[in-house]
């Protein structure tokens, strides 16, 4: 058990930090410090390509597909330095952290050759088509269907909460390819180009006033017959494996964003004097503890994963960060008081980071599997408790 880094690793840190600082104070100074997922999408697409040009876009990937075969320690260091340098949210997060590793694990050599370099070099930005209206966290309830027609898959249906779909080139879709099937059987995992008449994206306005999420409609949308990951009808397994990659090194990048939020809160508390209130101090200290423990929980997961195993902390990570962030939003409003409810925006419904966090973080305990689903997963898969009983459907 060792938390420190070797000298060679620290040298890598210097290399990464130097490059990132130069890039983000030079040609990409304009995206430095961006925190919103929807801000400056075109410049962030250029940033993806710029990272790729120096092989910094996906360092954990194999070199043959654009990565550096980086060790876990190197990936941890890069994530830390990326955040420290003020790098913006990665527009191709889903491509690099989720679908890329899934293609590496489940794709044919042709699929790897076709898709991975385009993700690595920033040509293909990806989004996710899992949830549907009426089947939020219930992947088994998917009603989008697909069938073979000539050399294509044809897709009909509707997905929802397709984060950032308006900026994306490709979407991975879970569709029912066996019309007789129910639940997790008979689903397939399809890779679908967004730029076609059969695909329409419509914004969903959130309670924050922004649109990060979308509804995506498939109306006889098409993709080549080869663009299926795994066998037809085996999509559930691929979909679940993909979700496993969500707990990768990118969690450390996410945590650096949380760090910034907590730092903002501490600054606000110092500015308005509430930092001197013992009640607030207790809560801020608890938030600080929670943030640190997320980091060390992630290091436990990552170490286990690098060893080819898994760690029980992985089951608890989603609910842990979601609850932490929602509590932080509530604490932020306690610190800001009534003044936090009013912004100097006129006409527009827009708030600064902390009040925005208060509103936005209500979604954290819902998307990507609600807290209720997360608790079921922990109870059933980690603790081995019996599966949920079902009442009769009406």
């Amino acid at each position, binding site marked *: 058990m060792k938390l420190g880094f070797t000298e060679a690793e620290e040298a890598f840190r210097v290399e990464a930090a130097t490059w990132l600082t130069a890039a983000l104070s030079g040609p990409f100074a304009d995206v430095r410090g961006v925190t919103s997922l929807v801000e400056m999408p075109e410049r962030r697409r250029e940033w993806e390509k710029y990272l790729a040009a120096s092989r910094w876009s996906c360092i954990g990937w194999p070199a043959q597909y654009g990565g550096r075969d980086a060790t876990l320690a190197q990936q941890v260091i890069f994530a830390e330095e990326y955040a420290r340098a003020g790098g913006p949210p990665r527009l191709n997060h889903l491509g690099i952290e989720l679908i890329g590793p899934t293609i590496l694990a489940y794709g044919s050599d042709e699929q790897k050759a076709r898709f991975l370099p385009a993700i690595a070099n920033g040509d293909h930005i990806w989004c996710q088509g899992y*949830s549907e209206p*009426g*089947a*939020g*966290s*219930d992947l*088994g*309830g998917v009603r989008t269907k697909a069938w073979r027609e000539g050399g294509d898959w044809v897709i009909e249906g509707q997905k*929802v*909460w397709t984060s950032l779909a308006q900026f994306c080139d490709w979407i991975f879709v879970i569709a029912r390819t066996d019309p007789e099937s129910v639940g997790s059987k008979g689903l397939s995992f399809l890779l679908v180009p967004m730029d076609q008449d059969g695909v329409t994206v419509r914004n*969903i*306005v*959130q*309670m924050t*006033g922004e649109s990060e999420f979308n509804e995506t409609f498939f109306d006889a949308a098409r993709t080549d017959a080869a663009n299926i990951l795994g066998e037809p009808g085996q999509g559930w397994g691929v979909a679940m494996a993909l979700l496993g990659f969500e707990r990768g090194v990118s969690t450390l990048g996410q945590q650096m964003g949380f760090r910034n939020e907590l730092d903002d809160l501490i600054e606000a508390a110092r500015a308005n004097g509430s930092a001197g209130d013992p*009640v607030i101090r207790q809560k801020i200290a608890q938030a600080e503890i929670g943030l640190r423990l997320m980091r060390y929980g992630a290091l436990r997961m990552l170490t286990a994963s690098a060893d080819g195993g898994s760690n029980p902390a992985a089951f608890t990570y989603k609910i842990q960060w979601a609850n932490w962030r929602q509590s932080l939003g509530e604490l932020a*409003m*306690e610190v800001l*008081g*009534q*003044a*936090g*409810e*009013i*912004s*100097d*925006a*006129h*006409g*527009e*419904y*827009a*708030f600064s980071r902390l*009040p925005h966090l*208060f*509103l936005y973080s*209500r*979604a954290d*305990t*819902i*998307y990507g599997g*609600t*807290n*209720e689903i997360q*608790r079921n997963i922990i109870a059933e898969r980690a603790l081995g408790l019996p599966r*949920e009983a*079902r*009442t*009769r*459907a*009406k």
Partner: protein
Amino acid sequence: MRFAFTDEQAMIAETATDLFVGEATSERTRAAMADGSGRDVALWDSLSGTGFVGVHMPGDVGGSELGMVELAIIAEAAGRQVAAVPLIATQAALSALHADGRADLIERVLGGQVATLALAGGLAPHGTIADLFLIEQDGGLVVADRDAVDVVAGTTMDQTRPLAQVTLTWAPIATLSAKALDAAKHTGWIAVAADALGGAQACLDRTVEYVKERQQFGQTIGGFQAIKHRLADMMVEIEQARSAVYWAACAVDEGAEDAELALHSAKAFAADAYATCAGAMIQLHGGIGFTWEHDAHLFFKRAQADRTLFGSSAQHREAIAQIIGLGAIAA
């Protein structure tokens, strides 16, 4: 001792509920939010017309001669529909004016004007559309017309109750006593607490309705124990909030010794319960509860606004700590 509505009070509750359900629809509330005023003008006229605004004022100045219980009943009904009306501050202001016998100003308000109340360190609800400004100063209140104040507003999280920073810039038209300030606070606290009670109850009712319909994982989600238990916990909070609001209202009406304690309890407890219930409402609705299109966020934002208007929950609890003899905070 009879801790239940009289027949007359039950009738007022029914009338108020009918009025707000009929008029304070989602469409009309959203229109009042969108134009930046946070006021549904037609609804405000209805409230003035039925005597609900001046429910607690004496008959000789045009009021309904009723008390805090009836005022709470109306505020609860308004809260249940997240109605966009400047009711709370206007009623609080009326209590202050009444305490100092300012019939002239009461008549202006009961004639349809909007009054607002800015306590020390706080913002003025509906300040941008108010006609009469009561501002805490030197242990009492000053009363000013619109042309005597500077109003700075921005975007308010709860668009049904836009907040403004108001500063006196010219001569006030009246100065009110410490007693009047107390009266304004007491009415304000009861009204906010009742608004929160109504809102919390609506969060519960609407969520119960939703989970009874919504199907997922092959069943009605209202059959899942995790959902049932969270709704049960909401009800436990709400029933306490209900006791708190009507205890406070009765205590003020009856001049009870524990009225101060009751007021702080009601404001702190009901506002916190509302926040809990509105948060749960979003969670139990899943993704749809997080959209602009669904009304859940109106409740959630109003709950936050109720928590901070006229003193935070922590401040009210600290006031209780002093009342019950915990002494001073240790240095």
